[in-house]
Each structure stands twice: as C-alpha cells, then as structure tokens.
C-alpha cells in the first residue's frame, strides 16, 4: 500500500483531472467536469485514508517510533553535487495526517461546489483550478525536499491567486487576488533566502538530511551554520527565521495577515478549502516539518514564533469581534486559530511530554480543518440563500435553513471549545502545553479562547436569530437551503467537527515519533470552559434578540472599537508603504532616471555629434574644383614638409 505508485496517484489524479478539464472538459463537457472531478478526488481521498490506515496501524511503529518512510525520490534539478531539488515523497505522521485532511476537505468542497457553483459560466474552469490547488497542496505536504516544498508552495500560491480572482470581472476580486499573491510572494522571498542560507551551510536540500546535519552539534555543517552570523545571530537562526517568514506569509500571521480577509472575495467553498483548512496552515506545517531544527538548534526563535502566533491570535480575535461581513469574521477567526497552532509549537520542545505542544498544534490543525471548513460551507449556504455577505441582511435564518443552523451551531461550539466537541480536546492540549511552558502565552491564549467564543456566537446569533428574516429577493423565494450536494458535505463535516477529538493524537503524532501519555488538567479545563461559557452567555445577551446593548458598549469604547473595526489600520500602513515609497518614490525615481539621465546621455551624444557635423558641413561645398585645389595644395604641402624634414 505504501509504495510509490499508490502514493503518486494521490496527487497525480487531481493533476490529471486538472489537465483533462483544461484541455478537453472545459470545451466539451462543461457541466460534467464537476462530477468527473468529484469522482477523481474521491479516489484520491480513499487512497489517502487507506495510506493513513496502513501507515499507522498496519506498518505501525518500528522501535517504538513512527518512522519517516521515503518511498520515492527522483532528482529533478541538480545544482551541485549533493544539492539538488528532488521530487520525493515523505511519509511521516504529520504528512500522512495532512494527506487525509487535504484530500478529505477537498472532496467535501468539490461535492459542495456542485451545488454552490451550479450555473456558473466558468464552472469547469473552477473545478480545474480546484484540482490544480489540490495537486499542489498534496505535493507540498508530501515534499521530502525543502526546495520541492518551495516549488509546490509557489504553485499553491498561484492556485490561490486564480481562485480568489475567479470572478475576474469584479475589480475587488482582482485586487484581492493580486494582494494575496504579492503579500505571500513577499513572504516567500524570506523562505527562498532561508533555503539558500540553510542549504549553503548544510550542503543539502533534503529535509531529513538537513535535520540530521543541523541538529547534531558535532557535525561540521552545524559548526559552520552556527559559527558565522550576522548582527550577532547565527546563520542557522537567520535561515530558520527567514523560512518562518515564508510560513508566516502563507499562514497570514501578524504582520503579514492583511491578505487573508480580502481573499474572501473568492467563491466561498474556495475559502473553506484554501483559506481555512489547508493552504493557510502550510506555515504551521512548514515549522512542524523542520521542527527538530527549530526546537533543538534555535529554541529562542521558536519562542519568538510562539509569541508571533499568540499576538496574531489575539489581534485577529479582537478585530473579528467588530466585523460585520460573515466571511471576514471567519477569516479573522482563521488567523486567530492558526496563531494558536503556532503558539502551541512555540511552547513545545523536542521529544517526550515536553513536546506536547507539537502534538497539540497538529491536533488543533486537524480539528480546525473540520470545524472551520464546516463554518465556511455553512456561511456559503447562508450567502447562497440571502445573496449577501453582510450580517445585517441576515438574521432569523434558523427556521429557513435548519440543517445549516444545526451545523453552524455545532461548529461554533467546537471552535469555542465546549466539551465534548472536537475543538475542546485540541484547545485543551494547547492550553495545557502553554501552561506548562510559558505562562504569558497561556494567559493570552486563555483570553483569546474567550474572545473566540464571543465573536463566534455573536456571528451565530446575528445570522440565525436576532430578527426575523425578511426576504429582499422575492424571486428567489423558491429556493431552499440548497441541493443535496450542498447539504451532504455539511453533515459529513459536522460529524468530523463533533467527533474528530477522539483521535488519540499524542499516540500518533508527536515531535519525535514516540507516543506519550498526556495528562488531564482539570483546573485548566475548568478555566477555559468556564470562560467560553461566560463569553457565550454575554453574546447571547447582546445578540439573541435585537437590542442596542452592543451598540452602547461599542460606543463607550468607541476609539478602541473604531481602531479594531478598521483592522488596526494595517491596510492603510501597507498602502502607504507600497504606494508612496515603492511606487511614487523608488519606481518614479528609477523611471525618471532612465528617461532623463540614461536616455539623456545617449540622446546628448547623438545631439553633439549632429551639431558638430552641422558645423563642419560647409567644408563639403560640393565644388569639385575647390576640392581639387585643396587636394593639390595638400600634396604640395606634404611634399614641402617632406623636403623640410629631409626624409
């Protein structure tokens, strides 16, 4: 089962589907393309689940740990001996887990989109992009080589660009796509230079070799990487930090988070897949992939990463409390949850029980994929129903769309960490890990958990309760919650969101591959659940019925509220930097310099030549006899000179 050909099928099937739809399906099977794509992906998902089962339970542990298996490695481009981009497959607990998550969520989104995107003009194109994304994401997850990861990392970015800009005639979608791509591209610059630094010192791009060489302090590679430095920090730390910048960009961490909320311009199922469950956790995955190096060789950097995660988490949670666009609230909540995962990695160390942060982070990544995808798909159904993203156009939908309502409620409870739903378990572990290793992060995380419950239930009540639903689109009265293919994924994901917590992560996915026994901390549980319940109660008071309590509160802290409502003015700052500094200063200056100085010198040379020739032109009088006379006297003169000098 775990051979190269089976494993290759998992990413290659979506790729084939992409090629098929782009070249044939788009033209000849415009509506059937979706179904084809769903079928292909269900094979992929089935294979992925089978692989996971085999990996964990058939092959199982060797010597008490889950070992990484590399069933395939092909040299793709060699730079110098030892340093090459290989296209390989790595199977270890996290990649297997991600395989399942990516194919499963992608399958759900594929099915959902059959209903959601029905009747779209570019229906087939949509599926081809979706398949391209799935292929790239699977390639990223399976990458055994750091540069291979970068390869698919960029491809993922482009598929995200294409999907955000799916409605390409809408200027806001185009701008959002552009912004997402450029911001992540900027971050990827860090990733790229980080790869250069790491490969320079370790002499390899292969992830396992890299880890082996940079974590044992007696190798020459390790010595070279830690000996040289820049600004008092070793090259190794710089390299890791730069790689993390790439991850932070993709995962929309502070201060590179600005693209994610705008990315909600894409179709909602896309947001569920790319901007909630899979692509945005790539940064977390990247840090987890290189976790031994971070944890062993650069623990302070890892701590910093933890702080960045938790700061993003709390900032995003605060902003989420003020937003009124259903998808934007969810987007900020995604940032907040990813921040959680990174914070959890930040409080972890390598190995044993001290590595529980790692397991917790992966656990949260896993559960988050289910409940966040579910939230987005529910939001999609709601948007499909009311034709608006604004919560003010919603309210009272619980009677109109009971299934969606139930799913959304359960997902909210899951994200709020109410037992026994999945989010409770993963959040619990994160808080426990943080409590054990870093109290500051623990308290911020605890507060954020409260905020999370508040804004999620604010959203829930505003959407499904608050007031009676008034239909503004009389003509659409006939349509219900959506067709079966929209409801089915909701129900399946709901099962995931409810039950994903039972997976014993500390037995399967740990920092060093060795299972450990987690401890149950009653006091932390009580603290967290208590705060969440309290936040839910406040949200109920504010938003269950239409009242002006919330307005009163927000106007009493109006400055803070405005500040958060405007997303802490990050967009404006970036706007200033790019527009004023990059374009109007450097760009304009270069352009001016080129037009006037560089080109000016050339034109001046031409001008001088021309002026000079204009001056000496009269000598060429055109009078033949004049020339002959000059010629004659010239000769005579030469003869005279010859005589004079006695040659």
């Amino acid at each position, binding site marked *: 089962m775990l051979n190269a050909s089976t494993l290759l099928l998992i990413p290659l099937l979506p790729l084939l589907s992409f090629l098929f739809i782009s070249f044939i399906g788009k033209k000849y099977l415009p509506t059937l393309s979706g179904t084809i794509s769903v079928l292909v992906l269900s094979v992929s998902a089935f294979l992925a689940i089978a692989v996971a089962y085999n990996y964990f339970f058939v092959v199982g542990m060797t010597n008490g740990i889950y070992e990484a298996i590399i069933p395939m490695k092909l040299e793709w481009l060699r730079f110098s001996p030892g340093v090459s981009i290989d296209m390989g497959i790595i199977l270890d607990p996290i990649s297997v887990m991600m395989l399942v998550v990516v194919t499963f969520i992608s399958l759900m989104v594929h099915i959902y989109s059959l209903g959601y995107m029905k009747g779209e003009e570019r229906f087939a194109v949509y599926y081809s992009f979706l398949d391209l994304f799935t292929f790239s994401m699977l390639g990223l997850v399976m990458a055994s080589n750091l540069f291979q990861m970068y390869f698919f990392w960029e491809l993922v970015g482009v598929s995200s660009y294409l999907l955000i800009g799916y409605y390409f005639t809408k200027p806001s979608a185009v701008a959002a796509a552009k912004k997402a791509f450029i911001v992540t591209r900027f971050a990827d610059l860090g990733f790229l230079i980080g790869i250069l630094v790491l490969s320079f010192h370790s002499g390899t791009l292969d992830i396992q070799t890299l880890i082996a060489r940079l974590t044992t302090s007696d190798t020459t590679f390790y010595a070279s990487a830690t000996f040289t430095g820049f600004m008092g920090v070793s090259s190794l730390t710089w390299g890791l930090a730069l790689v993390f910048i790439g991850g932070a960009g993709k995962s929309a961490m502070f201060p590179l988070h600005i693209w994610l909320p705008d990315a909600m311009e894409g179709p909602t199922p896309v947001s569920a897949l790319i901007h909630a469950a899979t692509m945005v956790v790539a940064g977390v995955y990247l840090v987890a992939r290189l976790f031994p190096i971070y944890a062993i060789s650069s623990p302070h950097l890892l701590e910093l990463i933890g702080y960045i995660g938790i700061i993003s988490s709390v900032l995003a949670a605060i902003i989420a409390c003020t937003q009124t666009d259903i998808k934007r609230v969810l987007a900020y909540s995604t940032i907040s949850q990813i921040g959680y995962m990174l914070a959890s990695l930040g409080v972890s160390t390598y190995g044993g029980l001290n590595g529980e942060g790692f397991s917790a982070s992966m656990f949260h990544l896993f559960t988050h994929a289910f409940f966040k995808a579910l939230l987005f798909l529910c939001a999609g159904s709601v948007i499909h129903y009311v034709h608006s993203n604004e919560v003010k156009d919603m309210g009272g939908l619980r009677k109109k769309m009971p299934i969606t309502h139930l799913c959304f409620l359960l997902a909210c409870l899951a994200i709020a960490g109410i037992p026994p739903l999945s989010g409770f378990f993963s959040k619990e572990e994160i808080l426990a890990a943080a409590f054990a290793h870093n109290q500051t992060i623990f308290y911020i995380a605890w507060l954020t958990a409260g905020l999370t419950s508040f804004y999620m239930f604010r959203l829930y009540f505003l959407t499904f309760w608050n007031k009676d639903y008034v239909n503004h689109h009389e003509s659409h009265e006939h349509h219900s919650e959506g067709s079966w293919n929209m409801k089915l994924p909701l129900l399946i994901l709901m099962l995931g969101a409810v039950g994903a917590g039972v997976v014993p992560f500390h037995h399967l996915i740990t920092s060093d591959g060795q299972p450990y026994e987690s401890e149950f901390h009653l006091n932390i549980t009580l603290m967290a659940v208590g705060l969440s319940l309290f936040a839910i109660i406040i949200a109920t008071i504010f938003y269950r019925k239409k009242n002006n309590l919330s307005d009163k509160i927000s106007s009493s802290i109006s400055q803070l509220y405005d500040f958060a409502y405007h997303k802490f003015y990050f967009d404006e700052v970036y706007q200033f930097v790019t527009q004023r500094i990059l374009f109007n200063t450097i760009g304009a200056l270069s352009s001016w310099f080129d037009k006037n100085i560089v080109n000016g010198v050339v034109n001046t040379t031409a001008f001088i030549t021309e002026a000079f020739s204009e001056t000496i*032109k009269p000598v*060429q*009088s*055109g*009078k*033949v*006899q004049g020339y*002959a*006379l000059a010629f*004659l006297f010239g000769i005579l003169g030469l003869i005279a000179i010859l005589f004079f000098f006695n040659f």
Partner: protein
Amino acid sequence: MIDQIPLTHILFLSTALFFIGAYGFLTRRNLITMLMSVELILNSVNINLVAFNRYLHPTIDGVVFTLFIITIAAAEAAVAIAIIISLYRKINSIDPEQADELKF
C-alpha cells in the same frame, strides 16, 4: 641621340604639362575641358614613367604601366563622357557647379 637630352629636360616638360593640366582642371567651368586637363595630367605622368624607365630603371615595368594608364585613360574618358552626357540631359549644362543636387 636621346642620350644627349638629359633627364631633367624631360622632367621639366612633364612638370609643365602637369601644371598646365592642373591649372586647366581648376579653372575651367566646362566638364569637357576639365576632362581634357585630366588627360594632360595623365600624359605628364606617362612621360615621367617612360623617362624614368629609360634613364633610371631599365626594365619593362615603366612601359607596362604607361600602357596600363593609357588604357585606363581611354576607359575613363568613355565613362566620363557618358556621365557628362547624362548630366547634360538632366540639367542642360556641363558646368560642375550646377550639379549640386546632392549637396548637403
């Protein structure tokens, strides 16, 4: 007989011929006369070559060159007159000053 005439005399003759030709070439306003002047110059050179051949360098070279120049001169005259005729057809004059269309 010829030995009694020193080389200088012949050189005087050719120099005189050369300057007459040069004067004619520089002053005349008629292309035909200018061409004739050029012929004078060429002939002065021929005289020189023959003379040098006879007095200083008694091989065949000088005579060959003279014959060569005579041939060239004939060809040149033919070409030049052809040009002059076409020029006359075009501008109705054979004054070189008038042919200024390509000037500047």
